């Protein structure tokens, strides 16, 4: 372990970094170290105190922001984007197929044929099911990954894997890695935002947006689409801006007195500055969720005017507004809580998927189209998918419910330097398992980092005697087939 090329935290400096961050000099150490490593220009004085200050990427990347549309519960790939024509007419047939879900491992099952029809869309002629006609109209901007695999078909650990690359909790989530690598370009808003479903959070709650063993500065901030967007943004007793300004002015004055005989301590000045940032956040965050200046046409593009789609549509529009304001990583959950409150269709597949696709199809298409017409799609990467897919066979003796499937499932990406109108990888003819060009979750992560200008195999954080990487010790290559 002598010398490594392009190590994100160079060997010697990395140790110093850890010591300093822990000892209380986070930002100075970070910027100092990174400039020594030659990746980053010297940060200017105003950002030197903020660990989230914007940093130039490690390499050239097209995307500047990510919007991860997380279909929690696991949407069925063969009912949405993975067309399996030979399955029609096979409903009810018992066949030999290896599956593994919450009901354990099985060697045969009763086929539930895809419950929706597929149609071809766009110049690429991509088949998309009737669940997603509007997303269908965007296929020429989308790259489909049909051969995704994950290590677990159980929600708890599978969510952790999709969000942090590990089945065991404690590892930083994807958004934390992006902010650690790139920082945020807007200090007045969080760089990593999570918007949850109305029904509740996903299983394991905050573990899905944790910064794990990294400093808490890199954790996701839960952002609400209505009311007060961020925790503690509003004063509980209604202190107004003017009064708060008075308070901060007096506080600054007294803190300045305290600082004068401790002039060398940058933590004290950083803390003084953090009150200004907080003060500004109180106006920038509500402004970000205020849709008043959005045209009616835009709002209806996201279908905010329809009951079924208004919640997810609003979040998609907010995501665009946050991207405009510099938030690096935004995750929106479709589905929350348990069972049919999310895509986890164990019982009535049709009812479940009609509901969840119905509330997301138009808003997602609206988001893609809006970003595109504003010239933002090139730099904004959209990722769509759940923690796994679903089995081709039925879970129970009767009914259409499908159990979980991590042997093969579909995710897609759009914008941010991704090729449009392409599909890579294949599952077998039932969609039971990926058989061609198989990709693991870590390849998806590698692709996202690569598109963001971060080298997935060199972006590392030293902890517990190990250079941790999002893509694991062995590393993983990006999926080149989808990178434009």
């Amino acid at each position, binding site marked *: 372990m002598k010398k490594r090329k392009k190590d994100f935290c160079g060997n010697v400096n990395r*140790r110093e970094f850890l010591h300093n*961050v822990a000892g209380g000099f*986070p930002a100075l150490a970070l910027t100092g170290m990174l400039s020594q490593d030659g990746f980053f220009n010297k940060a200017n004085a105003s950002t030197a105190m903020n660990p989230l200050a914007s940093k130039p990427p490690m390499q050239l990347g097209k995307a500047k922001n990510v919007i991860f549309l997380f279909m929690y519960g696991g949407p069925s790939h063969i009912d949405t984007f993975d067309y399996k024509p030979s399955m029609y007419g096979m409903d009810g047939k018992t066949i030999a197929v290896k599956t593994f879900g919450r009901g354990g491992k099985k060697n045969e099952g009763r086929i539930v044929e895809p419950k929706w029809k597929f149609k071809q869309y766009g110049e690429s002629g991509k088949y998309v099911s009737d669940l997603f006609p509007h997303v269908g109209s965007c296929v020429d901007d989308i790259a489909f990954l049909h051969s995704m695999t994950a290590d677990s078909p159980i*929600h708890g650990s599978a969510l952790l894997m999709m969000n942090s690359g590990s089945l065991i909790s404690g590892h930083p989530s994807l958004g934390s890695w992006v902010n650690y690598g790139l920082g945020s370009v807007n200090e007045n808003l969080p760089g990593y935002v999570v918007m949850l479903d109305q029904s509740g959070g996903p299983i394991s709650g*905050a573990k899905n947006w944790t910064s794990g063993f990294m400093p808490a500065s890199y954790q996701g*901030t839960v952002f609400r689409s209505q009311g007060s967007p961020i925790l503690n943004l509003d004063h509980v007793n209604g202190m107004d801006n003017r009064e708060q300004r008075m308070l901060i002015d007096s506080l600054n004055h007294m803190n300045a007195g305290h600082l004068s005989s401790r002039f060398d301590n940058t933590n004290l000045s950083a803390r003084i500055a953090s009150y200004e940032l*907080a003060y500004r956040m109180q106006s920038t965050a509500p402004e970000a969720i205020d849709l008043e200046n959005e045209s009616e046409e835009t709002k209806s593009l996201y279908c905010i005017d329809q009951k079924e789609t208004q919640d997810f549509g609003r979040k998609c529009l907010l995501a665009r507004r946050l991207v405009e304001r510099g938030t690096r990583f935004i995750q929106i959950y479709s589905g929350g809580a348990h069972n049919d409150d999310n895509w986890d269709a164990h019982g009535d597949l049709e009812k479940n998927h009609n509901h969840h696709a119905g509330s997301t199809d138009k808003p997602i298409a609206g988001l893609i189209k809006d970003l595109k017409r504003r010239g933002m799609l090139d730099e904004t990467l959209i990722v769509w998918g759940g923690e796994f897919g679903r089995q081709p066979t039925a879970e129970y003796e009767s009914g259409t419910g499908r159990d979980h499937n991590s042997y093969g499932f579909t995710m897609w990406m759009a914008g941010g330097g991704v090729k449009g109108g392409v599909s890579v990888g294949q599952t077998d003819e039932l969609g039971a398992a990926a058989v061609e060009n198989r990709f693991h979750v870590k390849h998806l992560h590698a692709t996202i980092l690569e598109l963001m200008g971060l080298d997935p195999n060199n972006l590392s954080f030293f902890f*517990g005697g190990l250079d941790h990487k999002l893509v694991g010790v062995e590393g993983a290559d990006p999926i080149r087939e989808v990178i434009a």
Partner: protein
Amino acid sequence: MTWFFKQCALFLAIVGVFSFSSADEEADRKFFSEKVFPVLEKNCFKCHGAGEHLKSDFRITSRDGLVRGGHFGPAYNADDPAASVLLEAISYKNEDYQMPPKEKLSEEDIMILTQWIDSGAPYDPSLEIKGDAKERRGFSVSDEDREWWAYRSVSKDDPPKVKDASWQENGIDAFVRAQLDREGLRPNSQASPQVLVRRLYYDLIGLPPSPQEVDSFLAEAENDFEGAYAALVEDLLSRPQHGEKWARHWLDLVRYAESNGFERDNPKPEIWRYRDYVIKAFNENKPYDKFIIEQLAGDEIENPTMDSLVATGYHRLMQWDDEPADRKQHVYDVLADNVQVTSETFLGTTMGCARCHDHKADPISQKDYYSFMSFFTGVTHYKTEGTIVAWAEQDEKASFERERREKLKSLRDKRERLSAELAGFLFEDKGDLEKTITFVEDARNGSTDWFYTMEKPTDDWSDVGFVNKAWFKAKGGFGVKGVPNSHVKTPWETKDIWMRTTFGLTSLPASVTLDLHHDEDVEVYLNGTLIHKASGYTTDYESIVLPDKALDAFQTGKNVLAVHCKHGNGGQYIDVSLKTGSRVALVEKMLSKKGSKPLQWEVNEKAGRDIVEEFKKTIEDIDSWSSKEPGTPLNVVTEKGANPGPMHIHLRGSAHALGDEVSPGVPAVLASDNSEPRAIESDPVSHLGKTTSGRRLALANWIVDPDNPLTSRVMMNRLWQHHFGRGIVPSSSDFGKLGEKPTHPELLDWLANQFVESGWDMKAMHRLIVMSNTYKMSSEPDSASLEKDPQNNHFWRYSMRRLTAEELRDTILAMSGKLNLKSYGDWVYPPLPPEVLATASRPGKGWPVTKDESEHYRRSLYVHVKRSLRHQMLADFDQADTDTGCAVRFSTTVPTQALSMLNSKFINDQAALFANRMKEAGDDVNDQITSGLALALQRQPSADEVADLNGFYQKLKNEAGLSSDDALERVALLTLNLNEFIYLD
């Protein structure tokens, strides 16, 4: 391998040799270059030899590489080519390694490679890409490795002589001063008594002194500083808050948490006793060696005590998935977690990397790693509720059970009678009583199909995801004829029976009755959660109304009811039913807090208050008698028995790919003169009716051996770290090559010696440190020193530090006067903001706010640590994450902290109370402000400071139109936000 196969292999090898030297050689070469090479080049080279990264340390581009193999061993098996790892990998038969990973090779390509391997895997030398000659996976410990500073024996050198003898309070100062002199640095002068009193309070008890405590210290210090200082140190070391402050540091190391994590994130019952054990150990100044032994093996020592058992809760703190994708692997994930925490916490050695391959930086081999893991393989795997052991004397138990049986019988009869009477008033329509839904039926009414076994199943037998392979299926009502009121359907004559059955739910039931007839001890689980437990036997079916806590275990979809019955003497019998309603349950529900109020008034009216109260009292008595245990329940370690079974190296960390067998041992570099781990022998021990392997005790004894170079250094470094802001070795859990080197190695050794010689006396070491002049230096900047040593690497001053998350919250509560200094006991749930609760998948569930409000103001150490739902304020201020051990916390400064300190309900509630306390100083606002600043900063404020705050106060009143009370609240809020309030000099 049998003799026969050996002969065959020999024969094959000879054939191979012949084929190389014959004319076939050219054919082989041709076959390789035309057929094999293109397949390898296209599918394998990128990761295995020709690309930038060499995966699995495996090079397929040369024959040497192929034969040497990678982490799964040699890829080519000359003895039995058909069994070569390469062929297994490309066959895709083993889920753990399918190569190439992207997709299976075509049948034709597989044929080519199979033929190639079968014929001895010849290469065309001109096409080989050979690797670095040093590329070998062999492991050896060099002399240089042994000479690494942390592995050398602790030096016994005396402190150096320094010129300025007046500065030498003790040995610490000699070492520090000598280094300062060498570096041309001057030590800062001593901090003022004012600064020191605050520093001492926070360092020793984690709380601020009151203004009275400050005043009395200053008065005494005026006459005799040394005496007053020493007396204060003694006073603080003897307070119960000392243990609480230092326990927090320890709990960070062992990633102490009180829930399991993952989907259900259930609490770990009784685990708080471990937290209390740590606090008590520090308060009672338990010798550190004993502290280590008890945590690792408190059940294996001679004469275990309740305390020493509780200490083994150490093994139960990790995250645990009740529904892992790979059950076998998860067993070792949990063990690996304990190996990591143990090696880092006690030995400052990061062994985690060696789980998959030999450590790349430190001289720790994979064999070292798995030998070390062998110390723990006897430990039973975790269960939903942990492993609860009741601590009681034997005769205490027997008489208790007799009494409980009689009591419960008469109480249940009474409940039946009263509910019948009350039902008459409650239900106009008697039909309501009939509408029960039966989930699981007992043998009196037709019975249910159960899966059962009489062989002890694995620990996870009650979990939802458990696969009851090889269990039998039969009708419920298990036992022998002759047990009173039994309905035997299936014979059971053995000692134990384990049974499982399932039922589906579309909605969660509001009340559930469990009818149970057992002989004898029974445990009933629902979805892995223990919902009822009873010891002894019954003489008839008894109805148990499940408490609300048990109802939480029900889930929509599939539910698993699992029962274990253990038989002692006489006839055996076990039968169970589970249904909604029952008269008793319905009556109970209606009269409960959640029941309809008008109906309750009506019943009170008609039946009379007395009978209603009597019914309620009876219910309470039944609950309390049912849950009563003889003795105290402890969540502690248990072992499988005397022999834990074999342990193997896991190739690439996979529990499905076993390498060589290993036995308990410690890393070679620390203890042996060759490169093999040193074996540590142990004998099984039996205490309290349980037999364990004795391995953990053997490990503990090796760790606390005074000759172990790491144990004393590591712990003294931690003490230093928490007094000075950084350790002498800043990476305090990593003394290896990737860690940082000590800035004062001789000082660390001297401290380590003092520690061992004192009999591992923790308080003596605290005393030694805080009495030194080094500790008493001021934190003021000095331009000359700053220029030479801006990071204070040589300790020319004391480093300022921010309060920890817990210190901050506790101090805010101390300001408001709400701080509840009650020590020890069960965890508490203070209210959390609804926005935070809403992030859970079952918002509000799993966080039942503690009823007694005064408990909300306990020290932060007692706040329940739930893995998926953290206390937002503590998390914002860098409280340690609980999934991995944390030796050094971050100290970040971000705007969300400011928002929480300005706007949250918590801070504003406390500011209002703080303002009220300020008013106790009289009506004059200047006096109020003065008293507030004195409380918050633990010093008398200057006139300018008071004037500044008064200016703010007046401005709020005059310009913002606030009332005096509101304005003072804002002054209080501002005070709590001062940098001086949360930073220590």
